[in-house]
């Protein structure tokens, strides 16, 4: 198992490095020109770092949420957090506000995500703890409302911001910038750290609250802590580059196929898998129709879904 994990980490690192040098313009790591150095350090490196951070956050959040909600169909967007972020950010893009310069859209998205997360949490709270079904239904209900409001805003809008908002909603990494990285990094690393630190408790929650209690955990407290970690990671991810589909739902299942369901290993593997997939998807999205860019979220789904369907057919690993 350790060897498998080391291999996955090495392959992931190699892919991250390779994606820096290939793209619409191939860069040789040996003997770079001044312009190539500028492209590498000012454009590609922050973009790769952001796609890795976002992919890691989504992959890990999916693994955690499927556990705390005891639902293999859960993903980070099911709690409505991303719909709240998208609504506020799209409204900002369309109206053209720029309170915080380059940070305006990320700040708006993070605020929308945070408010939605708190609201969903409050709705899912009963008798001193989160109830998985209540959280899920509150998230789905709020998600529908926000999606409808988003469509309403977009259908009433006719300005140039509309296309940008549409791109952003499907995952737009073209706004990647060094200045965004420290903020996203802090929230995602803290969220990932919390969920890895509480991974034994997450395993116990998958068995149900009564067994979690019997194994020496407080299921209400653990679910609350893990919900906070998912909220931080999802909000940070959406604010860095919009909504990326597929990763949060299916990467944890691919991880289970590769290394099993133990959350202590599944969370880091899902994080690495999410990072790798988004990195590759972004590379393809910006290269195939260059200079036009395709949203990374569309590529992740086109790439990942057939592979997922293949393993679904080949391996009897899923229970649904």
């Amino acid at each position: 198992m350790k060897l498998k994990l080391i291999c996955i980490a090495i392959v992931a690192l190699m892919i991250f490095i390779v994606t820096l040098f290939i793209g619409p313009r191939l860069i040789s790591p040996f003997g770079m020109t001044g312009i190539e150095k500028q492209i590498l350090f000012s454009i590609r490196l922050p973009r790769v770092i952001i796609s890795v951070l976002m992919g890691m956050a989504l992959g890990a959040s999916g693994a955690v949420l499927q556990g705390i909600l005891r639902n293999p169909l859960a993903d980070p967007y099911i709690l409505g957090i991303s719909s709240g972020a998208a609504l506020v950010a799209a409204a900002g893009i369309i109206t053209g506000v720029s309170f915080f310069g380059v940070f305006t859209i990320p700040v708006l998205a993070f605020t929308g995500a945070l408010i939605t997360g708190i609201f969903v949490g409050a709705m899912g709270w009963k008798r001193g703890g989160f109830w998985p079904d209540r959280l899920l239904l509150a998230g789905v209900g709020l998600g529908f409302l926000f999606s409808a409001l988003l469509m309403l805003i977009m259908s009433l809008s006719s300005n140039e911001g509309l296309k940008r908002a549409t791109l952003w909603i499907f995952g737009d990494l073209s706004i990647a910038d060094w200045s965004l990285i420290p903020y996203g990094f802090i929230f995602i690393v803290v969220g990932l750290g919390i969920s890895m630190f509480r991974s034994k408790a997450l395993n116990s929650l998958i068995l149900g609250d009564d067994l979690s209690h019997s194994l020496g955990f407080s299921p209400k407290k653990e679910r609350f802590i893990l919900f906070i970690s998912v909220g931080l990671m999802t909000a940070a991810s959406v604010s860095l580059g919009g909504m990326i589909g597929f990763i949060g739902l299916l990467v944890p299942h691919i991880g289970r196929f590769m290394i099993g369901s133990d959350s202590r290993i599944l969370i880091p593997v899902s994080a690495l898998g999410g990072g790798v997939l988004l990195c590759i998807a972004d590379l393809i999205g910006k290269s195939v129709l260059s200079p036009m860019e395709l949203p990374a979220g569309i590529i992740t789904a086109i790439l990942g879904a057939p592979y997922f369907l293949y393993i679904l057919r080949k391996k009897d690993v899923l229970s649904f």
Partner: protein
Amino acid sequence: MNILDFDKVSFSYEKDRSFIRDLSLSMKNREFIGLLGANGSGKSTILKLASGILKSAQGKINLWGKEIDSYGHRDRAKLLSYLPQLLDVSIPFTVKEFVSMGQYPYDAKPELTVEDAIEMVGLTDYTKSFITNLSGGERRRVYIAMTLLQGAGLVLLDEPLANLDIKYQIELLRLLKELREKRDITVLMALHDINIASQFDRLLLIKEGRMLGSGTPHEILTKKMLNNAFDIDIEMQHEETGGIYIRY
């Protein structure tokens, strides 16, 4: 010292409607006790109160002489393990991954290994199988292996024999009795099979959240007691060999 004490415990799921009323019971080390009663009589609620999942509205519940809520979660898990009646899991853990969770309350590896626990329930050939692909009875044996690995002195089991065929019912009862001899465990088990009930040291007969009777199987498995507890007219046949059978 008693392992578990209920002192006039009351509990209600709804306001103004007591479900468990003034229940007192005590368990001594190495006792093998069956909790018998009709559906909805309160057997599962008593086990959840004993495990600390539910909090009593009135009365005290002591574990090894100390109030159950005074223990930290991990410390309590080293003394007491509870296996609920409804077992469902939708994430495909392998049998080994699942059973190894029994080690969670401990920092160091317990005496019993994961492989030993799996072998005890006869699932060695399924170690790498996904629990989601096992039959109901096999899954229950996986849960029991995890409970055994947890190694607590008091084991609370809610209908653990459900979905098990007669071979595994008998093997589980034998295994628990063997563990009592080797590891001094105390067992409180909810059940509703009266034929199995004769295998216990002591039976607690529950009706509508109250204790109807406590005693040996010969004292409890009588026509009068059971007709009262289950609201049905049945005959009991006690044989000289010790067997007790139900006739209807």
